């Protein structure tokens, strides 16, 4: 060992990492020394640990050698050395082999060691045990769990928790001891070591014991209910964290079974006034989150009490409590802002909170609870405030304002002025500016009144903008939106300025934007000026700019002369491609390279969207992001629930799909590709429309089935995606049989059905049933039945056991309905009322809904059933009002006829009365849709 290196890292403040090889060699020689020098060994171990903590690691053979040499230190009885040895064992056990060699020595310490090393020994023990050795530690761990010393008991409890995945059967036998550990109060720290650090003693073992007990009983609902009764009744729980744990347990149970909620209401009400702020917060969080999922199961009084509790927490001295309360209120504000309007005075005073996290959150919450009457005054408050905060907060505020622009289109003037002000006067980096520009682009796309003013200001902005990325986006936007405005030449001037003044990246973007004005109808003279501008640019010094100008000129020429529709498409395209599917097709085209790219890339099978469809998709995404962002945060407190079931819970409140939009997009792209790659189905021609994925079974069923309806011009295909959730059973010959509800009247004729040969455990695959269909709108319900042969698998090989024949079984799944909504695509229109008034063919229907559902649930259902896009923020039904009007817009997937719906809802004691008024270019579609809403 070189003394030089020794010196270097002995200097504690130096921050230099010791060298890995030096440490290794020093350890190997020092630890094998006899007799052991405990002080030097401890020093070396601490260096080794520091190295590991910094992310350095050792190859398996070196780690194992280290582990064995460290195990030799068991010969020395020094407690401090022993503690370091345990830390090293824990750190090395995951990267070295044969760690079981330390087992007996550790167990001896667990049994006979001093109180100081026992907790360390217990924690190290689980890292060396495996399933076969765990049982020999059973008795030791059990007695440590009930040890009177809090540190020993806690160590045993947490270690048993970690033992569960290793040796579940052993750990499961600790129930009685764990139960005892919850009941037994052990003040921590032990023996009154109360000082500044521990102003009060806690009973932390209760928390650890409760956590373990939950793990041991979590699959037994009755046992958990009993547990809650037992520990909430009297004053058993003294630990604050344990109490919070109990609240979380209730949350978990009501998430699993919503009907339990009512029985917990008195208890929850009680907890809202618990002496601990954390218990109050957790309870309020539970109630408000649950209310979002199941509004009608939470009494109005309880919800109000939860809000009152949160409201009073907004003024407590502790920053963390204020922040937590605000965060929960912020979530409520996204779905039911009216329920927390009472907190507005407190929220307003928090705008000046010295903690910027809190002030920013207060503002974004206020922006959501804001009503049309106070939005503009709120915006003026923020205008004063925003220049004083850091970029991060500015971005949050701008994003909040951005959602406002979609929710309160009528406030566009105030919002637009705010955005323009921060864009022009605000100091800030790329991300901040980019977010402002995004917000303005949203306004251009979705708030027609604001379009001209927003575009003009963006033009001003690019005159003096330092960010290439932003400039390019704005130029693209001008090219897209400019030609259809009243004064296209205005934009041409701004764009051409860029060509004169900017770098080649921006010049290239400007060329493309310019060329889009060449075919403008409003202003025919413009075409000629564009051509002459482009000619001039065709001499640019940069290749890319020249190339783009030249090719644009060619397109424009041929588009003009021959009325060539393809060239026209290139200049100003009316469609945009579905990007995920375009991307995946392109990359498979490039990687396959079958004939050195002799065959051109085929775009015909890629979905195309017209502008209104693309906007509808984008707006829907934004609408759901709002809700999703909220709900995801809401369910984070539920322990032990899998991702999948989380999704399903969300499903029940918003009857959309279980995955988020983006994944739904990818999934539907994948489904369509799979479908269209099958020979039999290729013959059906282009895919006209696909529905979203519909759950046809309980999401927790053994076989989870989801359906998708696909429409072609003369065919319909039902797709059933089946997931086998069993671990040891495969399914052979999986088939879905669909029977029309009225077989005699059905106008659909079954062509063929494709089954799955084998569905292995935890696999997903699809069955298809295909029908012949006339070109008209055909509606039908199908009763579905899943049949299969089960085959038991050998757990070792995952192959079917030879001696078992398997037996036939069947499984009922929900019906699937082909309805009018399946013939409709969402579509965006800027001015709904005008569009509605202009459409012919009115149809009116009245419904009386007896089912006990909220207005919001009904709205969600309408959105899904009609496939239309909710406009003017009407997808939110205010929960404090008994009436609501939904405005929906879409168009026929077959021929593109527009359809608009106005649905008025009134909630009474008897149910919900619904009046739907539809107008469309297609009378039949309109009548089918309006009369088939429920």
């Amino acid at each position, binding site marked *: 060992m070189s003394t030089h290196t020794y010196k270097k890292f002995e200097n504690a403040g130096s921050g230099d990492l010791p060298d890995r090889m030096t440490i290794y060699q020093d350890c190997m020689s020092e630890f*094998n020394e*006899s*007799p052991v020098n405990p002080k030097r060994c401890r020093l070396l171990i601490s260096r080794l640990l520091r190295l590991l903590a910094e992310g350095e690691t050792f190859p398996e053979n070196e780690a194992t050698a280290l582990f*064995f040499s460290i*195990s*030799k230190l*068991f*010969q*020395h*009885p020094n407690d401090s050395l022993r503690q370091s040895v345990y830390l090293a064992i824990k750190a090395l056990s995951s990267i070295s082999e*044969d760690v*079981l*060699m*330390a*087992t*007996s*020595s550790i*167990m*001896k310490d667990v049994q006979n060691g001093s109180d100081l090393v026992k907790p360390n020994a217990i924690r190290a023990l689980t890292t060396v045990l495996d399933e076969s*050795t765990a049982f*020999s530690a059973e008795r030791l761990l059990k007695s440590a769990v009930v040890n009177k010393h809090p540190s020993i008991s806690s160590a045993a409890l947490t270690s048993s928790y970690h033992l569960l995945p290793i040796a579940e059967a052993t750990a499961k036998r600790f129930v009685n001891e764990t139960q005892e550990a919850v009941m037994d109060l052990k003040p921590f720290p032990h023996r009154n070591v109360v000082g500044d650090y521990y102003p009060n003693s806690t009973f932390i073992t209760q928390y650890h014991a409760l956590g373990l007990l939950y793990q041991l009983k979590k699959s037994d609902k009755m046992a958990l209910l009993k547990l809650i009764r037992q520990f909430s009744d009297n004053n058993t729980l003294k630990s604050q964290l344990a109490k919070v744990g109990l609240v979380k347990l209730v949350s978990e149970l009501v998430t699993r079974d919503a009907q339990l909620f009512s029985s917990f209401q008195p208890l929850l009400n009680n907890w809202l006034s618990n002496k601990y702020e954390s218990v109050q917060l957790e309870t309020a969080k539970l109630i408000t989150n649950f209310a979002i999922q199941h509004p009608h199961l939470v009494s109005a009084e309880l919800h109000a009490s939860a809000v009152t509790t949160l409201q009073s927490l907004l003024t407590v001295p502790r920053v963390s409590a204020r922040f937590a309360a605000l965060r929960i209120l912020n979530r409520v504000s996204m779905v039911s802002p009216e329920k927390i309007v009472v907190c507005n005075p407190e929220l307003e005073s928090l705008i000046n909170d010295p903690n910027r996290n809190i002030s920013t959150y207060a503002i974004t919450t206020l922006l959501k609870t804001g009503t049309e009457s106070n939005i503009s005054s709120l915006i003026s408050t923020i205008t004063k405030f925003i220049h004083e905060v850091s970029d991060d907060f500015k971005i949050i505020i701008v994003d909040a304002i951005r959602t406002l622009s979609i929710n309160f289109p009528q406030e566009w003037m105030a919002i637009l002025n705010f955005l323009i002000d921060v864009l022009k006067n605000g100091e800030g980096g790329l991300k901040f500016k980019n977010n402002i520009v995004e917000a303005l682009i949203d306004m251009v796309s979705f708030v027609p009144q604001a379009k001209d003013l927003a575009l003009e200001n963006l033009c001003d902005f690019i005159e003096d903008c330092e960010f290439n990325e932003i400039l390019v986006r704005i130029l693209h936007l001008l090219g897209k939106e400019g030609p259809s405005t009243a004064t296209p030449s205005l934009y041409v001037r701004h764009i051409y300025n860029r060509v004169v003044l900017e770098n080649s990246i921006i010049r290239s973007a400007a060329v493309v934007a310019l060329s889009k004005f060449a075919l403008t109808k409003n202003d025919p003279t413009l075409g000629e000026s564009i051509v002459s501008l482009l000619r001039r640019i065709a001499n640019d010094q940069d290749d890319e700019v020249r190339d783009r100008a030249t090719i644009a000129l060619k397109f424009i020429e041929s588009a003009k002369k021959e009325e060539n529709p393809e060239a026209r498409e290139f200049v100003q395209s009316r469609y945009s491609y579905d990007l995920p599917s375009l991307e995946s097709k392109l990359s498979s085209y490039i990687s396959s390279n079958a004939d050195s790219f002799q065959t051109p890339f085929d775009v015909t099978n890629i979905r195309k969207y017209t502008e209104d469809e693309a906007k509808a998709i984008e707006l829907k995404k934004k609408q759901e992001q709002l809700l999703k962002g909220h709900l995801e945060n809401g369910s984070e407190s539920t322990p032990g629930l899998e991702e999948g079931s989380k999704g399903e819970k969300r499903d029940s409140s918003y009857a959309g799909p279980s995955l988020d939009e983006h994944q739904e997009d990818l999934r539907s792209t994948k489904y369509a590709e799979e479908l269209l790659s099958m020979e039999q189905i290729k013959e059906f021609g282009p895919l006209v429309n696909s529905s979203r994925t519909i759950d046809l079974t309980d999401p927790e069923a053994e076989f989870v089935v989801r359906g998708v309806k696909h429409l072609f011009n003369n065919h319909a295909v039902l797709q059933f995606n089946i997931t086998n959730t069993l671990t040891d059973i495969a399914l052979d010959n999986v088939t879905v049989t669909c029977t029309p509800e009225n077989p005699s009247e059905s106008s659909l004729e079954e062509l063929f059905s494709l089954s799955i040969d084998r569905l292995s455990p935890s696999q997903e695959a699809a069955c298809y049933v295909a029908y012949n269909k006339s070109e008209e709108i055909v509606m039908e319900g199908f009763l579905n039945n899943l049949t299969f042969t089960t085959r038991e698998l050998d757990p070792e090989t995952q192959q079917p056991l030879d001696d078992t024949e398997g037996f036939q079984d069947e499984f009922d799944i929900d019906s699937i309905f082909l309805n009018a909504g399946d013939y409709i695509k969402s579509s965006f229109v800027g001015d709904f009322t005008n569009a509605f008034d202009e459409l012919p063919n009115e149809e009116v229907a009245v419904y009386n809904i007896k089912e006990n559902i909220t207005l919001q649930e009904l709205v969600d259902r309408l959105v899904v059933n009609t496939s239309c896009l909710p406009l003017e923020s009407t997808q939110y039904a205010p929960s404090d009002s008994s009436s609501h009007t939904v405005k929906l817009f879409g168009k026929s997937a077959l021929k593109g006829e527009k359809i608009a719906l106005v649905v008025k809802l009134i909630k009474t004691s008897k149910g919900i009365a619904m009046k739907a008024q539809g107008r469309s270019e297609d009378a039949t579609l309109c009548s089918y849709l309006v009369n088939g809403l429920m």
Partner: protein
Amino acid sequence: MGNFFSSMFDRLWGVNKELRILILGLDGAGKTTILYRLQIGEVVTTKPTIGFNVETLSYKNLKLNVWDLGGQTSIRPYWRCYYADTAAVIFVVDSTDKDRMATAAKELHLMLQEEELQDSALLVFANKQDQPGALTASEVSKELNLVELKDRSWSIVASSAVKGEGITEGLDWLIDVVKEEQL
């Protein structure tokens, strides 16, 4: 005389010098029982040793560092990790376990071939003599083929760990040999 001897030993080796002794043998032979019989003079209840136990004990003014390594098949390959600096090996045999004498013999000879153990003395305990049907020390010696051992001090002692018979006799012999050899 004894005093003179040990004080001279101390001077030569330094008072802190410890003697490293390994206890090896098949599982269930009585190794752990012997270790604790030596350390606390009592019979403890044992469980199969997963890994090893190590204890430091004083014996006749000497510090012994005694390692009892588990004897299960899965653990035997790791014995060699503990061979370095070993002064002596105690090999324990369950004298009633006639079926596994051959296995014991094989493991013993395999171990003695190791380079690091060339200078270690060997003491064999023919343990569990209190049991009816136990082989005698000379019978065990024959089964283990001890006569074949060359260039090594070795001895076999009949013992009963539970009754405490033979253990100290065996250890006395071992200490004497080690002292002599180290001198």
